[in-house]
């Protein structure tokens, strides 16, 4: 546990660094000393950000020690994903928000109140994995009670589905909206264009909060090598929708900007495209090593400096939070390591809804 805590505080010393992105972000980074949110909210966001980071680092550790086949997740996006989770109207059915997420959203779930145990179980693909029963990769969440539709590996398909849930919500009334998230690379897929087209038809606009978290990478390919658009949010302008590019590494800015976007979509029942600049702190996935990227902004370190300067949090307190979560997650991971895998005979379960699972060719 002590070793883990040390790794959290100085990960760059022991990890192989990723090469820097071709073109770093500029101009958007907010360094304001003003803290326009309540201290309690700021500390709560910081706490969840750390918890999410520790969770992802525990998942990576599980992968690296043979307790999982593949890791993918969102360390580095906590400053954006935590405020996102706090603003979601959580519940089941069209009165609540539908969530069409990609696989970097664990911090959002934790901010919504999810326990981290399920993510560990999915990493270990145990029978008790609450999202897929050991069938899917880490970070591929699904939770019907919260309208979280199954996260899937194909890039961008979620963007095509969001207008469908939003259409039902607009017809239903109320203020539930559909929220879709994905990365910058995936915006090259046609499904991103489908989302823009289907959610912005004149007179039939749909309440979709379209989010692109832009880390300027697509696995190993820099964004500027494969797309010419300067700001991804500009693509929404052509469809007459409100758009904004924001600093997703600053939780205060992210919270305020998202709040405005949420309120617009909830009340106007029209789409809003948010592009958030974020970091990718452990690479694309375990396929690229899952090592700490030293050249990227660490939103937690940046936020802690701000909180310290404001007198809200000391270094010692911040370290204590990390240590506490590190210990908790390590204990939970040890518990999960002992849990059984799903039985092979269960492959026939849930092929069809409402029907018992069976091998159609069994005599």
């Amino acid at each position, binding site marked *: 546990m002590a070793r883990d805590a040390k790794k959290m505080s100085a990960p760059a010393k022991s990890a192989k660094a990723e090469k820097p992105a071709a073109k770093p972000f500029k101009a958007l980074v907010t360094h304001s000393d003003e803290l326009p949110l309540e201290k309690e909210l700021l500390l709560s966001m910081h706490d969840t950000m750390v918890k999410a980071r520790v969770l992802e680092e525990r998942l990576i550790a599980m992968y690296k020690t043979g307790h999982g086949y593949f890791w993918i997740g969102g360390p580095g996006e906590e400053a954006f994903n935590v405020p996102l989770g706090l603003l979601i109207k959580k519940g089941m*059915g*069209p009165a609540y928000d*539908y969530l069409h997420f990609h696989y970097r959203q664990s911090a959002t779930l934790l901010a919504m109140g999810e326990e981290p145990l399920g993510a560990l179980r999915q990493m270990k693909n145990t029978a008790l*994995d609450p*999202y*897929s*029963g050991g*069938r*899917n990769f880490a970070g*591929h969440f*699904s*939770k*019907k009670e919260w309208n979280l*539709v*199954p996260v*899937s590996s*194909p890039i961008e*398909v979620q*963007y*095509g*589905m*969001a*207008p*469908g*849930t*939003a*259409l*039902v*919500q607009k017809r239903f009334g109320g203020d539930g909206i*559909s929220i879709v998230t994905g990365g910058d690379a995936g915006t090259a897929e*046609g*499904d991103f264009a*489908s989302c823009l*087209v*289907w959610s912005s*038809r004149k007179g039939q606009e749909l309440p979709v909060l379209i989010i692109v978290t832009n880390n300027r990478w697509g696995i190993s390919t820099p964004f500027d090598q494969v797309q010419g658009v300067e700001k991804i949010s500009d693509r929404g302008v052509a469809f007459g929708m409100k758009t904004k590019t924001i600093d997703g590494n600053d939780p205060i800015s992210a919270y305020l900007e998202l709040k405005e976007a949420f309120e617009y979509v909830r009340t106007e029942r029209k789409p809003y495209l948010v592009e958030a600049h974020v970091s990718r702190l452990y690479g694309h996935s375990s396929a690229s090593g899952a090592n700490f990227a030293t050249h990227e902004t660490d939103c937690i370190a940046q936020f802690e400096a701000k909180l310290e300067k404001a007198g809200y949090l000391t270094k010692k307190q911040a370290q204590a939070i990390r240590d506490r979560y590190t210990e908790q997650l390590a204990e939970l991971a040890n518990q999960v390591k002992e849990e059984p895998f799903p039985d092979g005979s269960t492959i026939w*379960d*849930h*092929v*069809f*809804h*409402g029907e018992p699972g069976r091998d*159609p*060719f069994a005599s």
Partner: protein
Amino acid sequence: MANMAQAVRMALHYAEKNLGVTDIFGEDVGAPLGGVFTCTQGLETTWNSPLDERGIISTAMGIALAGGRPVAEIQFCDYIYNTIDLLKLAGNTHWASNGQWNLPMVVMTPVGSGIRGSIYHSHSFDASATHIPGWKIVMPSTPRDAYGLLLSACKETNPVMFLIPKALMRVRGQELIPGEPAEDKALSKMIDAPLGDRSKWKAQWPALEDASIPLGQAKTVRVGSQVTVVSYGRTLPMCTAAAEKLAGEGLDAEVIDLRTLWPYDWAAIKASIEKTGRVLFVNEDTEVTNFGEHLVRRTVDELFFKLLAPPKLVAGKFVPGIGLADPLEAASVPQPHDIEAAIRALANTQP
């Protein structure tokens, strides 16, 4: 008697009024056209979508996820291929979420040759569709079956692919759909949109009934004793005609209309093969990794010692397209003489 386009339309009317169907949509599905084959004229929940097949399928998935009941149309199955990963996703959503989510959605699309549709309006989709687990696959050959099967599809809580043989779209049925007027012209006057300005037109729907036909049940169209012929869709009436013709020569073939490709009625196929010892599978999709090949495999696996002759498959030629010129199309998909020849050959094979 209704034709298949009218039968589909009446089923959708019944479904939007009684079965909770919320959205019937696709390219040109709404007013004024009501579908390029007129299948969606006069309905209340229809709307025109952007020309975007991926958007159509994924929006249907979204509607289903949020509790709606969509019926989405892909105008020709030739244009469904760019949605194949979405179809896979729809098929695995229930399984991947370990039973949390299910998708009550119907995708209907016209399939097959027979309207001189050349390379991109003649494809079949049954071979590809049956490669995607998690879907129920339906393909009627008569208006009555189209009506009954579509009602069952609209009651399903799983994704259903409803394949409509476009060459049969205008063929009148021989069996009344419960509620439809017996007189052809009377039905047309009630539910076919007029030419010209349709802005004030409203369909006058007959008093239709829930005459649904369960998915997964085949129909024995002709009882016979010497050869079993299993088909579906456009080639089914060809098989029936071949069997009738050969009956005049003293050859007695049994014809089974599979109607649902997944889950399919193996019990019906098996019972018939055990009776005749000879079986021919017929469809017009390309013959390599064809659904009929699966049926041949299962026949060999399970019924080998009941067989009096090797099982046969008559299917479309494995070429990249169906050419426009008559001789090209005729050479590409099964023709009546191909089916007759195959039945004769089976009947004449002795162990």
